[in-house]
């Protein structure tokens, strides 16, 4: 067999394996991306639940807290903002601005909720209300689920971000615009723990 032929064959083999190698990296990145997107779906379910609970909570509180209209309205407003921010984020969890927006809205909502619960302390009747007790219990449970889902999401994002940065994955990542994903981290100190709803 002529040397020309051997060279051609080797060349062919190298090209084929080169292509396969790149496709493998591409697939790996896609897989990691899908993994964190799926992880976001879990946050999404729980946050929706949270947004559904809040209006009921406010409705119950209204009957008792005649003079705290402002706070109650602030909670509803923050809830609506967070809800629309979540819709944006859930459309594309890989979009870091959308996630950033959700983080901001969530922190604001948690802040106002914290204020509401601080005020509730002053209304023993409200605290003893069956409905209120049940709602806040469920809210706590939902907070726990959110924080667990968030942890899973952040782990998945971290794995993806690391994978897209290392060589030679970064070449593929740049070629096909695998953008860096944003962690879902809550900035406000108070939200690190679930809001205190013990009463």
């Amino acid at each position, binding site marked *: *067999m002529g040397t020309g032929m051997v060279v051609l*064959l080797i060349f*062919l083999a190298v090209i084929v394996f080169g292509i396969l190698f790149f496709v493998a990296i591409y697939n790996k990145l896609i897989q990691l991306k899908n993994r964190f997107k799926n992880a976001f*779906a879990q946050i999404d379910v729980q946050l929706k639940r949270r947004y559904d609970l809040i209006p009921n909570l406010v409705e119950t509180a209204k009957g008792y807290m005649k003079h705290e209209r402002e706070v109650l309205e602030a909670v509803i407003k923050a809830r609506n903002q967070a809800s629309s921010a979540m819709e944006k984020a859930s459309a594309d969890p890989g979009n870091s601005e959308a996630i950033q927006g959700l983080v901001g809205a969530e922190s604001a909502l948690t802040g106002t909720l914290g204020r509401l619960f601080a005020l509730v302390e002053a209304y023993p009747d409200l605290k003893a209300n069956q409905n209120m007790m049940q709602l806040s219990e469920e809210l706590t449970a939902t907070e*726990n689920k959110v924080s667990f889902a968030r942890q*899973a999401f952040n782990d*998945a994002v971290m794995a993806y971000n690391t994978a897209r940065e290392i060589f030679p994955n970064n070449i593929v990542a740049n070629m096909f615009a695998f953008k860096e994903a944003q962690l879902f981290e809550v900035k406000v100190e108070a939200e690190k723990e679930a809001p205190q709803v013990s009463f």
Partner: protein
Amino acid sequence: MDFFASQDAARRKTSLLVLYFGLAVFFIIIAIYLALTFILLSQQSRTGQFDPSRFWNPDLLVAVVSGTLIVVLSGSLYKIAVLRSGGARVAEMLGGKLIPAGSRDFFEKRLLNIVEEMAIASGVPVPPVYLMEKEKGINAFAAGFTPDDAVIGITRGALETLNREELQGVVAHEFSHILNGDMWLDLKLVGFLHGLLLIALIGRSILRGSSRSRDSKNSGGAVLFGLVLLILGYIGVLFGKLIKSGVARQREYLADASAVQFTRNPQGLAGALKKIGGLASGSLIENNKAEEISHMFFSNGLKASWLGVFSTHPPLVERIIRLDPAFNGIFPKVIPEQVSAAKAERTEVKEKQPAEKIPKGAAVIALTLLAADPKNITREIGTPVREHIESARRMLDSLPQQVREAASDPFGARAVIYCLLLDKDSDVRGRQKEHLRSSADKSVFEATEKILPYMLTLEEESRLPLMDLAMPSLRSMSLEQFRRFEDNIDSMVRIDERISLFEFILKHVVVRRLERNFVTPQRSFTVVDSVREAVQEISCILSLLANIGHDDDRAVQAFAGAAAIFEQEGVKLQYLTKKECKGIKLEDILDRLAELSPKVTQALITAAFQCLVHDNRITMKEAEFFRLLVYALDTPLPPWIKI
């Protein structure tokens, strides 16, 4: 055909496919060689003379053979490797999105319920369900390598136009693909086709490359060569598709038949098929990757092909007539499901079949087929029937709401597993709780405490199905979360310095299954085809089983009865006494047994069952050990039904 026979048949069909595929490659090699020789000669022939002996060019032949093989094999192996990593990849490739276990959407919730019932009824882990949100047609697919990593995908259209019965028919059809080993076949098919396609793709890029370069002097040959590869590649693909659709059409009829066998309700499946006919978008899948796995769908996902031979599915009308001979060929007009009406339907179903209370705490379990002929046990495997589905639904309905809810979200699912591990002994339980308090999340510990009272009311036989139920939620943990979970399980199991059978099962099954999420399983290619190669392991497992259910003397007899099945083939098994059983490393044995071929597996299960029913009573412990064995052998055994 029973489960093992169809698994075996699927594997045999695979070897037939390899043969077809080899033939296709052979002809492609010859064709490429001839074409290349022709191109070379035609370029030389400008000088005038023609010499037939030039057609024989060994250098060129070697080059063509090795070149083609490199391309085709790497293409196939690569694709198979990608698909092997699990059904989730296929679902994601098609734009599917995982339906979160805690979904509150009515249609999604209903689908998850149907899938859970069907999974528990057939004894496979509850598969994750993916939704193809953008697809308006009615279609579904099952993908994955084994029942363990199988997923089910479904279109939004199917979710919202089918009623519960029809949806159940579709899901049963997909489950029978899982149970018949069709996915195994599918995977190979897709892989082979990809290898052939790669030739065409290379041809196309050569064509493109040379049409760009202006150097027309040299590019003439290259263009011709590219064209030849393109044409041959596509001819190969064409033949591949013929094989694929031929195989796939038969499997569809089989899956339809099994689905009816499971649900004993041909109207459900027929109704779904009729709706496909009546719907404008039919069963069309718009995602452009659909072509590749077209044969895995419930109904034809591609635009009608001008030639029936390429269709991967039998004609709709024909499928319907097999299910409903009275069908007149006129498809009814389809109206989407109304949420309110659908909800009413569900309650109606419930009223019709009042949830019978299962008798409590009976330790003796009767089986649908009684000990009359234990050999029949393997016929039950992989073939759940209506009774199994109904009993699964009853079991699910009897679970306390709080437990059911906890199992359906990743947060609470851990609490469910922890609760299952809590010991009966109050001292040990106290220490286990202490451990959880200190090393699990505070909120998980609270959740565990909260559902514990409800967990204590559970029937013993709901414990393993509950583990299956929690599986999809547990799968959404991240690697870090899983490691912590695993550590906690491990310490809880070890706290009393002895591992009970149930603890072992839970730990073994949960950890094994979840691990596959993060590492592609290193599936060994060794298949233990003869009993002789696993005499020791089989002896161990049967001795253990005999000793669990029987006292010393009877254990020897029970073992002998089971060993007789192997003795017919001239293999002598070695009985181990209770003491000798103590030192056995069960994990290793189970791993080894997982490599058994379907035929040996069938013999082992028959023998184990023989051993189980030796004294005509099955204790809970025996039943659970038998189930562990069945889990380890990746064999879907429907749950026991008590009578």
